[in-house]
């Protein structure tokens, strides 16, 4: 029986799907802003329904499963196509649809002149739908559909401007990198089905929770799940696709980095927190992968000159923070950072898009500057976001990052140290970006579109989402104010009803230690900002590439040679093997074999053709001889 609650749950993913189908089907008919408005309206409706579900949700309401239909029923396998509504999925739904709506609105302005705008919105809606499927699925397989759907949409959207070959390569790279992670996810699902006989989250967690800590099976399954998460959430070693994903239109970058896609890995780990809780070994790996990724992203971000690339590496770094939090079992801290990060990273990307828009496509920050006076709204909101991501109180980034740092300190002071260092680097590259873009004097000669005198502010449809996000970035921290500030860890309490892992986490730090840690990180970050200001604050000239950089700096500027490493480690041997297999297998074996088969058949036919005399008696004779031979064979077993 379909209750009103079920109906609401189904409506959330149904709207974007409807949008994707309708806009996709009528993309040639829809003119101007129609597609954009339609797509935005549908995702907004989805958000409204999510909000209704959220507001009507009781404090301790149990998990609600909405079964749409019985999807796979083979032997012992019984997988319904069902949605799960609990605090975690609800929270993710709010983020996806909420941020998604703002990005859609923004896209109306940003993609205004693109001839394929309708296709863009169809894909954007499909992206949102996939992500909703991912977070709402009640079992691993439904999540996996969304998981793959997100991968597909990212491929489509990154390569949206497909006339440029590099963009296509970027899309393909994202696809391939994600596939590597997907193998982990598939294997993990197989393993869990083998062990538990079901893929439903509720049942898996219930059965898994009764197993002993460190059970090798759980450890394997969690490691495989984490492999999937690294692919989707761009952790070491599968992160190289994310910076390349900048090839897509800027709203897509915002969507991928803030609301969807990269948070999928975090979500998956939090969703399976019960299992991860039982695998300390996996958790250690997650912690250190997260820490390493945070440091990696932060260092590479230091020397990037493309405004979007800086933000991309910043995302990588922030995702590292989230995984570090998951690694120490601070799931709610991780989710909290997901939320705040969604706010300010979406804001940063949309702001960057606004800047790029203003400069008619220029993305090199060395050729910007002095935009503060021209693009006031963009500047103000960008400033808010930068301060938020740097982690300066009382903005949202401070609370979420501090939560992670405090949790990490309790587990491993070394990891804490690295993360604080990464936080300083974060402040450095973000403020470098801010200063170079908005301060100093305009250094660019940007080739502006015809009829455009100089840099200009974006239209309202683009700035309003920026302002909304700015407000959220400022007050977002209020969602989870820790006890020492007199808060009640609201988000943690809220999410605790969804995942047992969240309920188990606790912070064993004295209030004084916490105060000290906060003071330490904040002061270090402020110091960094001051240093950055002295370096870039008043820049007026366009400086070229320094002739000789120290080795480390060169290495970092080249992104730690990660792409080159992969090329050397995987691509080169693979090409080598392929070439040789082509030389030997294809040219020496396969081609002669196939061509030879054809020639042999031809020759045989030429010869056997003579049998076809057209003489019926001869055929009859042949048939009889055949029957005799067959009978003799069967009889005497020749």
């Amino acid at each position: 029986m379909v209750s009103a609650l079920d109906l609401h749950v189904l409506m959330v993913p149904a709207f974007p799907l409807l949008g994707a189908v309708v806009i996709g089907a009528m993309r040639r008919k829809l003119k101007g802003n129609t597609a954009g408005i339609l797509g935005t309206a549908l995702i907004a409706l989805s958000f409204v329904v999510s909000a209704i579900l959220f507001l009507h949700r009781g404090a301790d309401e149990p998990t609600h499963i909405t079964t749409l239909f019985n999807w796979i029923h083979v032997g012992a396998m019984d997988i319904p196509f069902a949605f799960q509504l609990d605090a975690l999925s609800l929270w993710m739904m709010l983020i996806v649809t909420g941020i998604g709506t703002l990005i859609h609105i923004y896209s109306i302005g940003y993609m205004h002149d693109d001839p394929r705008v309708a296709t863009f919105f169809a894909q954007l809606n499909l992206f949102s739908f996939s992500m909703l499927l991912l977070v709402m699925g009640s079992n691993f397989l439904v999540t996996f559909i969304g998981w793959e759907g997100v991968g597909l949409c990212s491929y489509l959207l990154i390569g949206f401007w497909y006339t440029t070959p590099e963009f296509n390569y970027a899309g393909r790279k994202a696809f391939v990198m994600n596939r590597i992670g997907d193998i982990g996810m598939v294997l993990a699902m197989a393993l869990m089905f083998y062990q538990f006989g079901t893929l439903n989250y509720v049942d898996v967690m219930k059965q898994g929770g009764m197993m002993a800590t460190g059970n090798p099976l759980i450890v394997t399954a969690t490691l495989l799940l984490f492999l999937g998460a690294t692919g989707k959430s761009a952790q070491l070693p599968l992160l190289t696709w994310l910076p390349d994903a900048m090839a897509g239109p800027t709203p897509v970058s915002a969507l991928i980095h803030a609301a969807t896609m990269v948070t999928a890995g975090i979500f998956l780990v939090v969703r399976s927190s019960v299992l991860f809780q039982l695998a300390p070994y996996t958790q250690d790996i997650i912690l250190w992968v997260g820490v390493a990724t945070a440091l990696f992203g932060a260092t590479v971000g230091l020397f990037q000159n493309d405004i979007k690339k800086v933000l991309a590496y910043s995302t990588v770094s922030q995702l590292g923070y989230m995984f570090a939090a998951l690694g120490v079992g601070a799931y709610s801290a991780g989710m909290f950072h997901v939320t705040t990060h969604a706010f300010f990273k979406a804001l940063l990307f949309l702001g960057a898009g606004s800047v790029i828009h203003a400069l008619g496509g220029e993305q090199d920050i060395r050729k910007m500057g002095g935009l503060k006076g021209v693009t006031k709204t963009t500047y103000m909101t960008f400033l808010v976001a930068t301060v938020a991501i740097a982690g300066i109180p009382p903005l949202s980034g401070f609370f979420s990052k501090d939560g992670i740092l405090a949790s990490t300190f309790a587990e491993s002071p070394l990891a804490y140290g690295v993360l604080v260092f990464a936080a300083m680097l974060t402040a450095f590259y973000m403020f470098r970006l801010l200063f170079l873009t908005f301060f100093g004097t305009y250094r660019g000669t940007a080739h502006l579109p015809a009829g455009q005198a100089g840099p200009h502010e974006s239209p309202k449809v683009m700035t309003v989402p920026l302002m909304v996000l700015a407000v959220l970035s400022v007050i977002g921290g209020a969602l989870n104010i820790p006890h020492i500030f007199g808060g009640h860890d609201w988000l943690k309490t809220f999410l605790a009803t969804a995942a047992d892992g969240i309920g188990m986490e606790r912070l064993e730090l004295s209030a004084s230690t916490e105060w000290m840690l906060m003071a330490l990180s904040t002061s270090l970050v402020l110091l960094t900002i001051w240093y950055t200001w002295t370096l870039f604050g008043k820049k007026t000239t366009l400086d070229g590439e320094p002739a000789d950089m120290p080795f480390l700096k060169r290495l970092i500027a080249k992104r730690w040679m990660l792409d080159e490493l992969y090329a050397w480690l995987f691509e080169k041997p693979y090409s080598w093997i392929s070439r040789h297999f082509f030389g030997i297998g294809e040219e020496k074996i396969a081609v002669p074999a196939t061509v030879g088969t054809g020639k042999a058949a031809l020759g045989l036919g030429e010869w056997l053709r003579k049998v076809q005399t057209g003489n019926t008696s001869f055929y009859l004779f042949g048939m009889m001889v055949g029957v005799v031979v067959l009978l003799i064979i069967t009889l005497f077993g020749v």
Partner: protein
Amino acid sequence: MLYLFYFFAAISVIAALVVVSAKSPINSVIALVVCFLSIAAHYILLNAQFLAMVHVIVYTGAILVLMLFVIMLLNMNTIVEVRKPMVTRILAVVTGGLFFLVLLAATRSGLSTPVPEGFDPGIGLVKRIGMSLFQDFLLPFELSSVLFLSAMAGAMMLAKKDDPSNVNRPPSSEPDLRQAGPNEKAA
């Protein structure tokens, strides 16, 4: 009983041999009639009276009379049949003999199969056959009517005289079947 069998068997085999070896097609048909009648006699010996009746009616009464009719219609007795070369004929007979032997060998285990227990004398009666036909074999029975229909239509199509106005090609390009094929030309 056994002698009756031998008698009819002899008639069947001899008639069959005449069918194969007679020079005139009319003689062949007459021999085939004799052969089929003797087979009908076998049916009666086997207590399949109804089948024997049907056999006589369908084969001797319809099929063979139709053949006779066609032979006379086409005036076939005047056509001199080209005989095949001796080698082919000997080879054919040898192969046929071999075939017979192999069939015998194939069933040599079956030849000693014990006759099963239980016996129902009524299976050849019209009632039983009818019940079986309309209960167990109803669908094939119905389908066979379709087969007949298509055979009828096909026969009409084939035997119908070509309407000259329907011929699209000029008559000169039509292959002349009266000429022998290239194989025979070469030979």
